[in-house]
Each structure stands twice: as C-alpha cells, then as structure tokens.
C-alpha cells in the first residue's frame, strides 16, 4: 500500500530529519489516531531512538510498531462474557449483552452476526429489539434473527418503551433457559441528554432482571475524533465493557479506538468486516497495528 511504502521509504533513510518525523506524524494522523496521541507516540519514539542510538530503518520501524502495540495492549482480555449463571434462588440467569452506540454504526448488524457466532457454538440465543424508534428497526433485527434461526422479542407498535422490550427479552431468556440475550438499542448521539437518560433507564430495568454481562459500544471505523466523546458519554451512562469496531473492510483505519481504549480502559473485542453474517472477527492487536501503519 502507498502508506506502507511511504513509511518504509521514510524509515529506510539512515538519518531522520524533522521532515521525516513530520511524515511519520502524518501516517499516524491519517489513521485517525488524533493529533494529541500521535504527538505522544512520536515523543516516546524519539526518546527511544535517541537512547538506543538506533539509526537503521528496520529498527525504527520496529520501534514504532512496538510503541503502537504497547498502547493497543495485546495483553488485555478480549473474551466476550456470554456465560449464563445460576441465581441465589437456583434460577437460570442468562448472560445479557447490550449493544449501544450512535446512529448508523452497525449495532443491529453486529447483533445479527454475534447471534450467528453463538448459535454456531450451540448456544441458545434470544434477541431483544429495544430500538422502537427508527423506521423498521425491529423488522431489520427480526430479519437477522430469522436468518440465523433465533427468536426476536419486539414491541407490537412503534414508539413503545424500549426499556420494557429489553426487560421482556431478558425475562423470556430466564423463562426459556436461554444462554444469551442480545439486546439491540436505537442509535443515539451522545450529546442528546434525553436519549442518554433513556439508555440509562434501559440498563437499570434490565439489571432488575439479570446483571449485564457485556455492554458493547459499537464504533464505526470511519469515525474521527468525535469517537472519543462517544466513548466518554456512553461509558458513563451505560458502563461499557467492550468496543466493537465496525466497517474495517473499507479504507478507514479506525485509529480513534487507540484513544478510546485508553480513555475507557476497556478493550476492543470484535471487529466488523462486512455486511454479511460471517463478517465478524475477534480483535487482533497485531493485525490492527499493521493496518494503522500501512
């Protein structure tokens, strides 16, 4: 790729000039890492290059990759908590996964793909269509459910209380001994207080019936620096436990998740690589970093 080639040509010079460092910064900026984090990364790299007395291209490239990998942190536990439990009263408690995010990032699609993965692992799944707002949102989710062979709990009308639908889905999961309940929510912008309150209510109502095993924030890889605002507010309101980075099949690198991971202290767990049912994969730190650099 041109970026990779360019980076390589920068790094293959035996002496880095200010212009070279600017080009390195540019590589990071183009990946949506953000000006602040890019500056910090390069400062760290400069120090190491100086301390180690590194001059040769291959080593500097390896060091930058190392620095990036350190921030992305391959040691984080990225497993999805989807194990059902038994309550104090001996009752079956399904794992509940709540999916949240701004409009159009791929929440509903991710729920569909995730259901497919779980079903393939022989787990029983029920979907909750807690987006009662957007046109045909419940139909879209139900279509995904039918596609992978799981049932969808939905309201009988548009505009119904989404918390009630989420509650019903979890209750059904309890009653039917379902392993995992996946709850889809409406897209909402983090600066809309009313909609964020509604999300808070959904989480509280669900928790009355079963603890939330995972709250997944779905971020679109094309998102720029606003992704950090999204993470902050959703993290605060919904207690996010993991990030899903969608649309990585395009030209966008998704570098904003580097800052997001650090801000929230929770890992990217899954990546979306297309619109089909099988286009969901575990996050791989090494692959991701290689993508950022080229």
């Amino acid at each position, binding site marked *: 790729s041109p970026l990779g080639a360019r980076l390589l040509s920068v790094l293959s010079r035996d002496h880095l000039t200010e212009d070279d460092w600017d080009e390195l910064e540019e590589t990071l900026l183009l990946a949506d890492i953000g000006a602040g984090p890019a500056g910090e990364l390069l400062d760290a790299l400069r120090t190491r290059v100086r301390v180690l007395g590194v001059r040769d291209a291959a080593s500097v490239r390896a060091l930058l990759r190392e620095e990036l990998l350190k921030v992305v942190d391959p040691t984080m536990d990225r497993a999805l908590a989807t194990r059902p439990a038994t309550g104090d009263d001996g009752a079956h408690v399904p794992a509940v996964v709540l999916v949240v995010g701004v409009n159009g990032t791929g929440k509903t699609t991710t729920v569909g793909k995730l259901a497919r993965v779980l079903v393939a692992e022989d787990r029983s799944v029920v979907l909750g269509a807690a987006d009662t707002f*957007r046109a045909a949102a419940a139909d879209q989710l139900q279509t995904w459910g039918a596609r992978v062979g799981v049932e969808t709990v939905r309201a009988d009308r548009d505009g119904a209380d989404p918390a009630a639908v989420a509650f019903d889905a979890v209750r059904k999961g309890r009653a039917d001994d379902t392993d995992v309940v996946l709850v889809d929510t409406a897209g909402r912008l983090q600066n809309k207080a009313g909609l964020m309150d509604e999300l808070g209510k959904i989480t509280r109502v669900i928790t009355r019936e079963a603890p939330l095993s995972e709250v997944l924030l779905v971020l679109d890889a094309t998102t720029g620096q606003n992704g950090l605002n999204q993470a902050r507010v959703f993290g605060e309101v919904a207690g996010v436990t993991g990030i899903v980075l969608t*649309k990585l099949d395009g030209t966008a690198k998704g570098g904003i998740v580097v800052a997001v991971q650090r801000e929230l202290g929770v890992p990217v767990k899954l990546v979306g690589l297309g619109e089909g049912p099988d286009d969901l994969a575990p996050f791989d730190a090494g692959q991701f970093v290689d993508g950022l650099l080229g």
Partner: protein
Amino acid sequence: MFNSLSDRLTSTFKNLRGRGRLSEADIDATVREIRRALLDADVAVPVVREFTAAVRERALSAEVSGALNPAQQVVKIVNDELVGILGGQTRALQLAKTPPTVIMLAGLQGAGKTTLAGKLGLALKEQGHTPLLVAADLQRPNAVTQLSVVAERAGVPVFAPHPGNQGAETDAVIGDPVGVARDGVAEARAKQHDVVIVDTAGRLGVDRLLMQQAADIRDAVTPDEVLFVIDAMIGQDAVATAKAFEDAVDFTGVVLSKLDGDARGGAALSVATVTGRPIMFASTGEKLTDFEVFHPDRMASRILDMGDVLTLIEQA
C-alpha cells in the same frame, strides 16, 4: 488544558497585545494553533496542509488593519477562507426543465440516505411538488421496509416493486436495483410525479462491484442531482471516500448528516476542497423535519470552535 482554539488563541493574543506588526514567527505560531484545531476537527491531513499554506501566505502579505491586532487578522483570514471554500458555490436544488426531476442519493453505509429521502420528500411536498421515493436499496435487510415507513411518515408515495433483502439472500447483489431505479423514473413519468428520489444501498469506496452498480444506476436514470450523503462524524477517510464517489457517480452536491451531534465536522472542508462540489444541505436529526439549507458561516466557526474567537475580534 487548552482544548479549544479559542482558549489557545486567547493566550496567544495576550502575549501579542500591544505589539504592532506580526513577525513571521508570530504568524507561524498562530498557524500552528490553527493547524492543530483543524486536525482536531477531523479536517483531512492534505487539506490541512493546503489550507494552512494558503492562510500563511495571505497573512504574510496582508495589509495591517488599524482595528485588529495582527494575530486577530490571521484568524479573520482563516475564517474568510473557510467560508469561501464551504460556501463558494451554495445553490438550491436543480429542477429539470421537463419533469420529473431525478435526485439520486449515494454514500457509505449508515450515512443517512434513507432518512434523507424522507426529509427531501417531505420538504418538496410542502413546496407543492409531488415526489415519488424509489426503493433501490435491495441490499441491506429491510431497507425497503424502512423507506416505505419513512415515505408513509412523510406522506409521500413509494415505488418498491422488489421486497429487497429478507434475510435468506446471500448473493453479492440482490435483485436488480438498476432496473428498479429505471422503472421508478418511468413510473413517475406515467403517474405525473414531478420529482423522483432514488434511495440506494450504502457502499464502500473500495467495493468495486457496488461502486459499479451505483454508476450503472446513475447511467440508467440520468439524474439532475446526485447527492452524496456524508456523516459529519467521519475522520480522515472523508477524502478517499469522497473521491471514490466522485469517480463513480460524479455527485453534484453534498449533504452533511448528523450535524445535531457534537462533532466538529471537518469533513465538510475536506469534501468541499477535494471535490469542489457544493454542500447543499445539513441533516440535523432523526425526525423528517430536521433538515435545513447548509450555512457556511456557522460551519466555519464550528470547525474551528471559533465562536469566542470571532467575538474577541469584534471586541478588538
């Protein structure tokens, strides 16, 4: 922590108070702050480079105005340049001399096309037009249903001869979206609708097959307007995506969506700069009435977080 350009420039101004003419170093310092603000606003890197170079050049050669101190003059130059690029060619929808006027919508997945179809439909209806929405997204599960619901909410008819992806389909391309688009225009002509709005599937710039399909739809309906819908939250990918859509469908105008969020929306500058196409509308919410003509001056101060800066200048 100095987060916004306003904050950072306020402190720059303080240091400069009382000084007469700006030195080259002073201009560079101000331009650096502006560069950082543009990057934080997600303006594309190559666009930032081009833009700051132009600003620097103008600032160096600028006449000293008595009313403003030189740093403030730099900011004013930035603002003027931004408004110039964003609003260079603002214009209204181009209507066909012989109806129906055909409007095609295109963009990435989830950008806000289907919602926009409803908004345009409603706005045009209220202006006395008789729009028809055409469901040419057969790809995304229930896209056709979504457009039908949106049309119903807007109180405009929809042409949806194919149910679209119902879940079982696994083909790369489902049905014949090009045919649906073509038939939609014929239907409008037959039923005397004076505007046709064609909703298309979201697609990635790198998806050869779907980009070709978009080009084929364009060729089949020869639209009067092709509107490229782009999410205001998009980052550095804006340029690659805008270029890919320009190549495939040669869009005539841009709609910036989700401007009701708190994203700075630097994409507006990126897309306007690299394609030279006008930004025509702003989408500002999920309701069908959340839709307005694009305001370049508001966008300029939003991108730079300039509200306070401009006030500062006015007070100078």
